[in-house]
């Protein structure tokens, strides 16, 4: 039977870097190890990949498949659950257990599986429409419960599978087939939403930056609880170059803020800009002293801060024009997972009064005998 995690190795800021066993990633402490060295090829299924040419999903799938051997989990203990949308086809392409479910419900289905099977490494693949429109309710509640699942949200800011309507992350005024006069609604900021929903792990990465993407997947797997990862993903057909400011070689150094825990936040082509708190509590961009002197008001990134206010302020730097877009781990804090807590309750009840006695249960309280 799965047992709750014995918390080890707290580093003093409410964060567990790894669980039992040397080098075991935190989300996998109850998952068996692979009995042989697996490689990328082992995680490719025999199905032909059928996304549009140039779709960002290819890059994400390739990075994911080449990362999976690092988990050191047998294929049979890996489960990928998705909803509906282009991204949600991903499970068919990975040689593991997979469930391509219904629109928006993957976090709910994964919650049932995760709480009844703690010996699995469980990944949810979703998109901006799937997770933030039709499945918004399940997403926020999975985050608040902190179920031990990894949610990868492929955000292309458009509806692809239904051929190009605006999505809940599309910029206001977006002209699409369903909004010929421009969309009216204010978009969601996925990271702000996740942080508001009490997420314990929140990160952002980009489809085209394989190295960064892989490092974020690794950090997500090393988080026990719900890990929420937004992946900027280009849709070449219906929303091409939506993320050009953070992906184009000339532009990205201007706009991308790479977050690294414990490091001063510096960005710009030669690291000439930094961040500091403004008097109203938001973050503002300031120049880094050119002479290399220390400026104590400049921000040093702390992903393990217990209070989410700082991470929220970071998430608000992102704007439609992507002038300042942080990527990396915004927040990574330890909090008991829902599945561990449920197991603990069951273990405690059994420890206190023993296993349930079915005959006594059926007899209930008052009984009488006839004959």
């Amino acid at each position, binding site marked *: *039977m799965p047992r709750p995690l014995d918390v080890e190795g707290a580093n003093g800021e409410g964060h567990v870097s790894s669980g039992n066993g040397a080098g075991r990633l935190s989300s996998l402490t109850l998952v068996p190890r692979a009995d042989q060295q697996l490689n990328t090829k082992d995680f490719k*299924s*025999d*199905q032909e990949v059928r996304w549009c040419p140039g779709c960002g999903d290819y890059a994400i799938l390739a990075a994911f498949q080449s990362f999976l051997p690092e988990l050191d989990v*047998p*294929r*049979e*203990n*890996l*489960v990928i*659950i*998705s909803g*509906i949308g282009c991204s949600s086809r991903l*499970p*068919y392409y*990975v040689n593991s*257990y*997979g*469930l*391509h*479910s*219904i629109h928006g*419900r993957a976090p*709910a*289905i*994964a*919650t*049932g*599986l*995760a*709480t*009844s*099977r703690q*010996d*699995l490494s469980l990944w949810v693949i979703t998109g901006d429409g799937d997770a933030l429109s039709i499945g918004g*309710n*399940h997403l*926020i*509640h999975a985050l608040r419960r902190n179920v031990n699942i990894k949610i990868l949200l492929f955000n292309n800011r458009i509806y692809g599978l239904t051929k190009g309507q605006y999505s809940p992350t599309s910029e206001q005024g977006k002209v699409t087939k369903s909004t010929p006069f421009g969309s009216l609604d204010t978009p969601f900021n996925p990271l702000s939403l996740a942080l508001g929903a009490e997420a314990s792990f929140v990160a952002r990465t980009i489809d085209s930056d394989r190295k960064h993407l892989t490092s974020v997947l690794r950090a997500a797997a090393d988080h026990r609880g719900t890990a929420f990862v937004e992946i900027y993903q280009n849709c070449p057909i219906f929303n091409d170059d939506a993320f050009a400011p953070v992906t184009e070689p000339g532009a990205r150094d201007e706009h991308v803020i790479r977050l690294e825990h414990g490091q001063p936040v510096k960005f710009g082509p030669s690291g000439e800009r930094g961040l500091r708190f403004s008097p109203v509590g938001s973050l503002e961009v300031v120049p880094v002293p050119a002479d290399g002197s220390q400026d104590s008001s400049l921000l040093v990134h702390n992903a393990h801060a217990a209070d989410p206010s700082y991470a929220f302020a970071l998430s608000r730097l992102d704007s439609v024009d992507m002038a300042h877009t942080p990527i990396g781990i915004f927040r990574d804090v330890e909090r008991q997972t829902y599945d561990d807590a*449920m197991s603990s*309750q*069951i273990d*405690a*009840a*059994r420890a206190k*009064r023993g*296993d*349930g006695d*079915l*005959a006594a*249960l*059926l*007899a*209930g309280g*008052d*009984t*009488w*005998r*006839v*004959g």
Partner: protein
Amino acid sequence: MTKQVQQLDQVIIRFAGDSGDGMQLAGDRFTQETASFGNDLSTLPNFPAEIRAPAGTLPGVSSFQLHFADHDILTPGDAPDVLVAMNPAALKANLDDLPRGADIIANTDEFTRRNLAKVGYDANPLEDGSLDGYQLHAIPITSVTVKALEGYDISKKDAERAKNMFSLGMLCWLYNRPADGTLRFLESKFASKPEIMKANITAFQAGWNYGETTEEFSVQYEIKPATLPPGQYRNITGNTALANGLVTAAKLAGLQMFLGSYPITPASDILHELSKYKRFGIRTFQAEDEISGVGAALGAAFGGALGVTSTSGPGMCLKAETIGLASAVELPLIVCDIQRAGPSTGMPTKTEQADLLMALYGRNGESPLVVIAPATPGDCFTTALEATRIAVKYRTPVIILSDGYLANGSEPWRIPDLAELPDLRAEFSFATANQTPGGGTESEPFMPYRRDPLTLARPWAIPGTPGLEHRIGGIEKADGIGTISYDPDNHDKMVRLRQAKIDGIAADIPPLEVDDPDGDARVLVLGWGSTFGSIGAAVRRVRLAGGSVAQAHLRHLSPFPANLGDVLKQYDKVLVPEINTGQLALVLRGRYLIDVISYNRVRGLPFRAAELCGVIQDVIFNA
């Protein structure tokens, strides 16, 4: 004073009062004492959806009816012999159901001018002669209770609240009920408030003594225990029986059980009950909504657990898409629909049988599944076992159609001996690699949709099983290999295979039994679900009056028992009473081309036996 003791063979009493008067509790305690005394019984709690409707108003009236007897009975009874009316609203709301000559015990303290006006009484009915046709017992229950509790250090409000225990004590004396259980109950309920506990016990005893010593009641009644089949018995409600049945079924199947549920009347008690059973390893998940409840249950089923979700009509609507997914991915799933009056919110605390067509057909596409319905509160236990057996053996969703009447009603239930229950582990096994059919070797890829030739069930291949890694989903799958397929002929084949699998279950369920003692009946009364008791009681009356009628009751609604068509053809007339507007009748007509006679009432209450008796006699007369 020695009072006359009169023997009765059956009594129907109804406690009625304001929602806050504790009538459900008084009724429940009386039921427990009656059960342990050994009478057969049947109960009908009837309460408003509002937790505390405005005090003293008609919408705020809550009642609890109990029918008990020295012989086996089938219904909570049509017309009460005794009404306890704690206020004018309770009298007014229930008087129409009372036959002339019935006893009315009225709490005079509440018959104030203001309370009378609230429900439209111009004059006090206790005094204006309008109740002359009844045996009226006008008793100042509140003030007598408060007086009896004068010595206790409790508030006046708490003293007044004990009036339900006074009433209960009085009724317990009147019908010679044992008191031990209630005293034990009060001791445990108020263990942390000793003064309140003592006061309630005193109120109960004061009520008892009031009956015995005053001249209000000249006769005490005795109802001898019923002769039930031998065994150990308890009183049980449908929801408790269903919850216990699910725990038992999971144990018999050797499966972990996972319940995903969202609170909804009248199904919430299943969630409450199962969430207590941590020691049995039961995992209960109060989801963020109905969709998540069933989704999580399906996720758990994918992982090899017995996935269960519980709800009522509005929740069924929301779960439909996920139930369709369960039908497509062919995994076991138990869906408990505790039906209530609809449409929409309808009348949440009132009963109805109007979700049948939704259960059978209420999903997109052709998505056949199994539907079964319990007949009595205790039968909910057996139904849970049967639902589990079919779900795990055939890898299919099974909908259990209970309803508000079964859920909250209760009856004596013979506690089964564990050794006599079926071994559900024999009904299924998880798939393993290298098995036939299914493959899962290097040379032969695993085929998640290669079916067992006998049951047509696909393998239940759960994560953690090496060699059986596979991907499935709501998209149509190629027969056998289970990969995505848009092939037209494959789809046609898969639609038919899914239907054939469900149809084939007909060979694995008991045939429909017909009760036709004369053997020459020309009329068959066919029911399903919770109308079993009312129909049975009505059929008895018809037969007592010399009429000849056959009765049959359907537990399996999808698929139907294999012999149903033959049974229907044997009778000149088939009468189908339902608490909807003719849903089973519609299916029978379409399926068997039989012009069944539909009888329908949708009042949020069970049928009255007298009413059905008349309907059956009319059909016989015209046959």
